[in-house]
């Protein structure tokens, strides 16, 4: 019994529901025998991975579905051992090099060289090359990306690379210029509704119009989330009447909104201590700090005066960026909270802030 997300995941390019143009393009590329390196990018839950799998199926046939999971050990130059999980079939190999952090370069070099230097031995294979799928390519380090550059050109006859990432901003230009870019946009509301209807039909029930619309609005373009919510709702309440339903927000989200409320209600040192405890709570539950700051900022912005909104977002952006460079997330979260409180208070008492802005 698998989740609906997996159960009804399209297996071939023909089953995909939206972005017809993209599917046609992928099919054509797979058929042409002249397959380039590719870079799939787009927001999460938009169907990047599904499209990659479908393309692989189109390229190699059923053989790619026979997956085996391997654990490989790599050795860094400083003799440290790295364990990496690899998913592979006879025709392709999937890696997530960002798992090993700063040592991803070693993994990239080793694996690509190994694949590149062995030719396809299976004579019945449809293509002469193997495919390397690199997930989360945007978290590759500079070094690893540099290592990819020449390899991508040199070993083109034996290997193709498919990169999968959320944005292209963090990939260096030489990599981008070597790949065919494939933008996978998030589905729009109608397309998501179609997919929800389709899944519901396959499961043998119908979704009321209102419920579907609510789920779509809540998911914000993330189809995976929409399907998970749909399944959860179905489990809670079998007839899916929209009046009786509330889409359960994840705990951390409500928690973040609570923090936002606290910030707006009262601006005192004592309140900062309380907020701090809550922030720690969120962080210890492995909610990424940038998600925390974004959600709280969203919550705060809802409740304050128009003229303050831009400033609050401005400081959220600044502290979020500092958080990435810095080491200890909690400092920056707290600094932002204090900043917001002082902004709010100054606004209330009408004190001119211009003199303080720069410091």
């Amino acid at each position, binding site marked *: 019994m698998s989740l609906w997300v997996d159960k009804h995941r399209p297996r071939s390019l023909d089953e995909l529901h939206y972005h017809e143009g993209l599917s046609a393009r992928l099919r054509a590329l797979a058929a042409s025998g002249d397959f*380039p390196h590719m870079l799939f990018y787009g*927001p999460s839950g938009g169907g990047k991975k599904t499209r990659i799998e479908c393309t692989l199926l189109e390229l190699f046939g059923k053989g790619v579905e026979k997956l085996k999971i391997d654990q490989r050990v790599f050795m860094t130059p400083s003799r440290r051992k790295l364990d990496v999980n690899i998913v592979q079939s006879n025709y392709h190999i999937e890696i997530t090099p960002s798992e090993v952090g700063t040592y991803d370069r070693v993994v990239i070099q080793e694996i690509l060289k190994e694949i590149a230097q062995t030719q396809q031995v299976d004579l019945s294979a449809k293509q002469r090359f193997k495919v390397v799928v690199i997930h989360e390519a945007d978290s590759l380090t500079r070094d690893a990306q540099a290592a990819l550059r020449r390899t991508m050109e040199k070993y083109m006859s034996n290997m193709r690379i498919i990169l999968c990432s959320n944005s*292209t*901003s963090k990939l260096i230009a030489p990599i981008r210029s070597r790949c065919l870019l494939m*933008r996978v946009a998030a589905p729009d509301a109608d397309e998501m509704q179609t997919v929800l209807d389709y899944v519901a039909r396959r499961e043998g029930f119908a979704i009321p119009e209102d419920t579907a619309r609510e789920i779509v609005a809540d998911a914000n373009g993330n189809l995976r989330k929409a399907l998970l919510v749909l399944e959860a709702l179905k489990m809670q309440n079998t007839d899916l009447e929209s009046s009786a339903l509330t889409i359960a927000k994840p705990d951390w989200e409500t928690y973040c909104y609570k923090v936002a409320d606290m910030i707006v209600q009262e601006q005192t040192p004592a309140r900062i201590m309380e907020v701090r405890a809550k922030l720690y709570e969120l962080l210890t539950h492995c909610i990424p700090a940038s998600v925390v700051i974004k959600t709280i900022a969203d919550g705060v912005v809802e409740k304050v005066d128009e003229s303050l909104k831009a400033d609050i977002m*401005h400081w959220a*952006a600044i502290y979020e960026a500092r958080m*990435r460079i810095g080491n200890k997330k909690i400092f920056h979260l707290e600094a932002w909270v204090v900043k917001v409180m002082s902004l709010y208070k100054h606004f209330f008492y009408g004190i001119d802030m211009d003199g303080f802005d720069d410091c």
Partner: protein
Amino acid sequence: MSFFQPHVAKASQKHTLGPEHQPWVEKYRPKTIDDVSAQEHTVAVLRKTLTSTNLPHMLFYGPPGTGKTSTILALSRQLFGPDNFRSRVLELNASDERGISIVREKIKNFARQTPRAQAVASDGKTYPCPPYKIVILDEADSMTQDAQAALRRIMENYARITRFCLVCNYVTRIIEPLASRCSKFRFKPLDPSSTSSRLSQIAVAERIPVTDEVISALISTSQGDLRRSITYLQSASRLSMSTSPPSDITPSDIQEIAGVVPDAVIQDFAAALGIDVLSDAAMDVDDTAKPKVKGFDGVRKKVREIIREGYSASQIISQLHDVIIEHPILNARQKSRCALAFAEVDKALCDGADEELWILEAGLRVHKAVS
């Protein structure tokens, strides 16, 4: 002592093993230095070295896709010919391990070998084959400081029998002592005319119909990077060939492949930020858009839409920047405020900050600056 040879051998074997599916970038890599596009000065200097067979240490630098690697590969092939190429040239790039230990062992070992006797060229041509070897360090700016420092003395000690060629994008990342040992060659971005002649040459060789508009779209998206424009051309031709019946390549195909955000989207975003858009079509859009929510919520809504479409943040910023800087009505003060905002956003994005937050930040600051 030939443990480096398998690598070199394989590398050159790969180059010759060319099925028809080779990327055009490799297929049309210049065979001789005279084929190199648009770098007249560098080529003129290097041509002299072919006749005099004396070569200084060299440092090639310049933006990607301007022919640095191609030039040195073509030069060494012309110097040594295919048979001696393997034993005389060591090519290392960032995909090879290049820490300090490799510099000490592999490079040093290669550098101190006496060059082997010249093998008789199998293709009947005569090559100058001067009595030294060449070490090509591609992408040298990704070598560590220590590794570069270790090269210093090696370069001097074996200068008689080994010449080094460093290839990099940013000359500032090469430590000063190394840079001063080399004669520097700057590769400039290709001018539109040589890019276009090269592209049409390839188009003719591959027998694909290409219009002038497509070529100009390629040039404008690739910004002087020849490799990028060739790759785009190849991808576009793949796409057009594989549909049935084969369709012609259009400029919008090129834009989609290049990951450029369509102008309409950018204009729309600019309108939401309160910038008057110029073209007539956009004017109409702007008029109808007037009653929409302006201010913070309007901007935020627009940003969310754009992020959902999956466009890359840096691309949006750079295109929005173009719109604003070339805008005829905004005054200098407004433009400079916007430019300041873009600079900060770009820095933050490079540091890996959250895209949605920072696009929103850019939007809000531009909104504030122009209102």
